């Protein structure tokens, strides 16, 4: 008799990973299936912002309350992924101060500690912001590393018995007597489960449709640019009705500016990239937040898709929710065995997982309670890089926290990626724990090649090391990575990035 899982989760983004962890902690036998690598979709293409909820306080009280609750939980359980930077909502002269007063009141109603700050004091706290500000509000926003957060969930799930199947697409949902009983993979295997959870972001609609379930989704593209270093150490927002390019987030050693919001066709979702026009818009607006951005090098631009759900599929798409959407298809569509969890935000993914897992448990008759809010994630036992650690370990400690003990720095202490201080030890750890095919996969778990040079100098060294572990030659690995980085560099190909491009081409042409 073929193995039957309690749960199969489709989608390896933060929602799927958090659901997998919750199921595993509640003792359910669980499998996550992902067509690409972990974080290939929107979870790896966002701001890396841990919302305080302030951005939603005026328009979406419920969303704001969810955010601040989850914000506090993640600071505790994912301390290694979260940097408690705090955030500022700044008012520029053209914004006026009317919005601010209401904003502060609404934040407080939602339980968000929003404090009006004198402009001079705000400039002392964060000297990079536009000195023309007429007001500022400090809120508990924070930076969160999405790759690290998803990895930590996956690791914890695996350590509690969950299984992961990556690089495997779902061809169809398997139905018997009107009930979803499993999935058929693109390789033709049938995997059975008592419940199947759709957590595939924007791709959820297509998978559901094949099983005769209609979910109205609207892809909304968000483009972002990465500046080469930290220009500010706090999250900077505009204190006005949310608009384009009004959030700057310090993400690890870079600064991420975004975003835009444009409806795109479904078939564009598999090839998301920022356009030169989007870059121009982002730059124009970003400089109003932090003027020094005008002189700071942009190392790449990228885009992701928000999986917005249309509440009434028959409607015109205006009735769109950015909130959490949990669909019990047994109840909604008469299709038992299938659940959809989507919408929401990176910040609220744990809550989404809790809601989905509660529903799964009800269906399966389990009384296990959710523990995800109380148990720290792997890597998050609070160790910070310090002066006592050798330098080649410090960046890895920052990325992996307490997981550092699983890396062999005795043998693998040599730094291979010099911008991001990635050592052979860290590469070996990533290969062993996450399974990678190429350098792009490796990047998500290590930051390899994500620095100023985008891998121009050291990627050949990295490729030679990785070729020892994967079924690809060093040359193939280099080309795959070059092409992937090129996609993000070409929209910003001028100035120093164009110089870098010439260097890259000469390195590869063996001219150097």
């Amino acid at each position, binding site marked *: 008799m073929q193995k039957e899982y309690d749960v199969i989760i489709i989608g390896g983004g933060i929602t799927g990973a958090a659901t997998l962890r919750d199921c595993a902690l509640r003792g359910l036998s669980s499998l996550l299936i992902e067509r690409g690598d972990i974080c290939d979709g929107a979870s790896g293409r966002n701001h890396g912002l841990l919302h305080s909820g302030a951005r939603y306080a005026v328009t979406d009280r419920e969303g704001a309350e969810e955010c601040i609750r989850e914000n506090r939980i993640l600071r505790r359980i994912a301390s290694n992924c979260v940097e408690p930077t705090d955030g500022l909502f700044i008012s520029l002269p053209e914004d006026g101060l009317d919005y601010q007063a209401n904003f502060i009141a609404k934040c407080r109603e939602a339980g968000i500690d929003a404090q009006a700050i004198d402009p001079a004091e705000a400039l002392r706290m964060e000297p990079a912001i536009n000195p023309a500000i007429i007001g500022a509000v400090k809120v508990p926003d924070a930076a969160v590393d999405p790759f690290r957060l998803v990895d930590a969930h996956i690791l914890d799930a695996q350590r509690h018995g969950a299984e992961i199947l990556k690089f495997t697409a779902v061809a169809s949902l398997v139905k018997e007597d009107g009930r979803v009983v499993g999935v058929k993979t693109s390789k033709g295997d049938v995997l059975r489960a008592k419940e199947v959870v759709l957590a595939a972001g924007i791709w959820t609609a297509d998978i559901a449709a094949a099983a005769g379930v209609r979910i109205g989704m609207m892809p909304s593209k968000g483009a972002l640019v990465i500046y*080469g*270093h*930290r220009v500010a*150490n706090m999250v900077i927002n505009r204190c006005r009705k949310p608009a384009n390019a009004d959030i700057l987030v*310090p993400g*690890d*050693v870079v600064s991420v500016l975004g975003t835009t919001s444009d409806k795109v066709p479904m078939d564009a979702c598999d090839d998301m990239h920022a356009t030169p026009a989007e870059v121009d818009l982002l730059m124009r607006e970003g400089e109003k937040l932090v003027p020094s951005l005008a002189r*700071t*090098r942009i*190392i790449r631009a990228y885009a992701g898709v928000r999986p917005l759900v249309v509440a009434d599929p028959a409607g015109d798409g205006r009735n769109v929710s950015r909130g959490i959407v949990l669909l019990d298809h047994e109840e909604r569509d008469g299709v038992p065995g299938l659940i959809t969890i989507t919408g929401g935000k990176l910040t609220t993914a744990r809550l989404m997982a809790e809601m989905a897992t509660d529903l799964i448990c009800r269906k399966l008759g389990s009384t296990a309670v959710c523990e995800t809010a109380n148990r720290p994630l792997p890597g998050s036992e609070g160790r*910070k*890089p*310090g*002066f006592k650690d050798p*330098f080649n370990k*410090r*960046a890895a400690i*920052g990325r992996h926290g307490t997981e550092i003990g699983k890396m062999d720095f005795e043998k693998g202490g040599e*730094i291979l990626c*010099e*911008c991001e*201080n990635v050592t052979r030890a860290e590469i070996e750890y990533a290969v062993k724990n996450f399974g990678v095919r190429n350098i792009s996969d490796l990047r998500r778990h290590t930051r390899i090649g994500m*620095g*100023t*040079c985008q891998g*121009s*100098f*050291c990627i050949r060294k990295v490729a030679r090391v990785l070729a020892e572990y994967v079924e690809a030659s060093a040359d193939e690995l280099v080309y795959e990575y070059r092409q992937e980085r090129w996609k993000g560099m070409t929209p910003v190909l001028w100035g*120093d990035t164009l*110089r*870098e491009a010439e*260097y890259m081409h000469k390195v590869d042409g063996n001219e150097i």
Partner: protein
Amino acid sequence: MNNLEQCLKCNLCTLVCPMMEVNPAYPGPKKAGPDGERYRLKDPAFFDYALKYCLNCKRCEVACPSDVHIGDMIQSARIKYGSQAHIRGRNGLRDWALASTDLVGSVASPIAPVVNGVLKMKPVKAVMHGVLGVHKNRTFPAYSSRKFSSWFRKQDQSGFDKYVSYFHGCYVNYNYPELGKAFVKLMNAAGYGVHKLEKEKCCGVALMSNGFADKARSQGEVNLASMRKAVAAGEQVLTTSSTCTFTMRDEYADVLGLRNEDVRDSLMLATKWLYEKISEGEVKLKFRKDFRMKVVYHTACHMQKMGWQVYSIAMLQMIPGLELTVLDQNCCGIAGTFGFKKENYEWSQEIGGKLFSDIESSGADVVATDCETCKWQIEMSTGKTVLNPVEILAEALEY
């Protein structure tokens, strides 16, 4: 001024870093500079104490095709993030003494014969090596029993139409007044009288590299105030030390954050000033016909950074009978007070090795260089006489 991401990671700077070549504990200019800076901006905990090995020779900046201020970035990080005590390590007293050129000089000068004699004694050297951490092989520059400033007070510099101001520096004042005397002779021959600055303190280079940035800043303020007065009186401020000049022109602003743009262009090495005056036809120097000297010119690292060796070389080439060869630019390894410290001695000598053998094999009578610490190092390591171009010019004058 933070241009860390103009760094394209080409690694050309790492090819020329003298410290990287001899000391594997030093991460090199790229990692210590722009790479490290990105991480330090995120969290000061990423400060790496290995940055103390940077010689501040600026060869990385000269090699950088992207104009990244690598050396400045490293110096600034040492000041900003490295607690001074940690940079100084266990040899706080020694570093303080080495850095306090002014104070030690004024104490030692009046009793120079005693000090010089004592510093040569083997038991004293052993104590200095063991207790103070100054390497026993190191020859200390001798102290002069009469300070340059005392000598200068007795000189009659009245009656000239035109004047220049002279920043003599600690070395001329306490150790080697001969260079200052040569400078005065040369200026007078050019038709210019010499004024001392109203107040002069050590330029601060030794203080900065030994972790006393605040003291360096306050001394810098004193020097800048004096220079402003000289410039207001229409006088150029001339120097005979490339490192003092570089420190006051560039490091004051780039590392210490002092405002010096109002005097920067008026502060220059005597050889540059002379070259310009001669080219403009305003000054004519007459040299002895019988002067003969075979000279190799060593470009000090800070001189190379300023790019002004062309002036010293051109001035030397004006002397008939002087046969000049320009050596390949290599670091001598002393890096100010760095080479005096016993833990650095071996590196210091290894770095200088290439230069020493070039000098030994050149067959020259004299090595010319614009830096006094290069002079100590080369004289100790090769036995050749090292002179400042100003001294050679003064000696060759028909006067």
